[in-house]
């Protein structure tokens, strides 16, 4: 276990990746904070013999604000940008700079190296969205923090699963493009095109837009995660791409 852990520590403590983590975490958090700073209101009409006006489940303004944090365009633009860069750094840059010659000649199998690199990439990606989200929502609503679990209970589970799906998809694209590209720069450019083409052309049934829209709808009661679209793009496609990347890295020499 110590053997693998050494490799893991090595992979996690890369300097450029750490700098990108600082950038990603603080900028994502900042745009979330700025999004929350503002007043809003909504009007409701109610009639009946017994009307429930109060309670944590009626705090729709807080719910909308917190849900909005996870579907911010700015945050996801920044995040896809950074995950692609991290992917290119993890899987391609070491080969460009020649470090890979030493790494891959160490007594580790290519599978082990691939697994560790992928794990570190996923940890970086998830940390950059989940940490600022948790921190900003808890500190902004610190006076009513004890009600937050109740307020968010309607959507938080589904929304977090969708976030994981989206991060998995972005990581998968970053991994594959890095492994098939001849250099890190091209890997980044190709990955960028794959992620952004659906966005700029306005195709909303492809990720990332598919998931961003889904997160903002995750609060409604008739929303279900278990559709072929979400599970397919968020789980099956990434897993297929990871398997493909694994096959690629096993079969190929370091060049």
């Amino acid at each position, binding site marked *: 276990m110590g053997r693998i852990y050494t490799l893991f520590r090595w992979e996690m403590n890369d300097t450029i990746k750490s700098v990108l983590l600082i950038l990603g975490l603080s900028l994502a958090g900042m745009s979330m904070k*700025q999004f929350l*700073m503002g007043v809003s209101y*909504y009007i409701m009409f109610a009639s009946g013999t017994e009307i429930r006006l109060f309670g944590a489940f*009626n705090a729709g303004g*807080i719910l909308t604000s917190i849900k909005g944090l996870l579907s911010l365009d700015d945050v996801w633009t920044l995040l896809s940008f950074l995950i692609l860069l991290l992917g290119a750094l993890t899987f391609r840059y070491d080969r460009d700079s020649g470090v890979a010659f030493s790494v891959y000649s160490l007594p580790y199998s290519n599978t082990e190296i691939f697994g560790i690199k992928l794990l570190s990439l996923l940890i970086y990606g998830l940390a950059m969205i989940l940490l600022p989200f948790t921190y900003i929502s808890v500190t902004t609503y610190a*006076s009513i923090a004890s009600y937050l679990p109740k307020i968010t209970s309607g959507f938080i589970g589904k929304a977090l699963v969708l976030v994981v799906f989206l991060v998995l998809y972005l990581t998968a694209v970053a991994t594959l493009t890095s492994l098939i590209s001849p250099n890190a720069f091209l890997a980044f450019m190709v990955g960028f095109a794959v992620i952004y083409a659906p966005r700029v052309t306005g195709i909303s049934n492809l990720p990332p837009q598919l998931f961003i829209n889904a997160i903002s709808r995750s609060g409604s009661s008739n929303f279900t995660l278990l559709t072929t679209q979400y599970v397919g793009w968020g789980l099956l496609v990434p897993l297929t791409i990871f398997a493909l990347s694994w096959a690629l890295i096993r079969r190929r020499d370091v060049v």
Partner: protein
Amino acid sequence: MRFWAALLSAMLLLTISSLWVYDSYENEVGSVGPLFLQPVEHQENVIRLSTITVHTPTSSLVEASCNGEGVVEVYDVITGELVSRKSVYGHLTYQFVLPHEGDYLIINNGTDKLTCSLRFIKNYPTKEVQNSLYISGSAFALLLALVVWRWELDN
């Protein structure tokens, strides 16, 4: 080590910039309305009412400017606590404080129609929010110092 250092400095940076955000948000005047407040109607057992839910990210000093006739009531949505109640005849401008961040419910508990607009003139984070930022910020700074110190020992 470097990962933890990066993570902690990012969180520290986020804490400091949150404080800075509150500083610049303090005097930012937010406005809500004009809101048309219909009176609560009772027809036998059936109650009909229109409610306004206002969301503010800080505790705020609100200036309400109302026209018409009625009773403006502001409640904390989560606890149901009454925050302010004011009877309006004709025109009235008054101020009240929303004690913490969150949602507030505004209804007209009178018999006639009212139009109100709200201006959020001062916005301060509550003591709890400030404490949470200061305490977590201190924790991040201490842990970061620990990481850097250990780093020195490692090499």
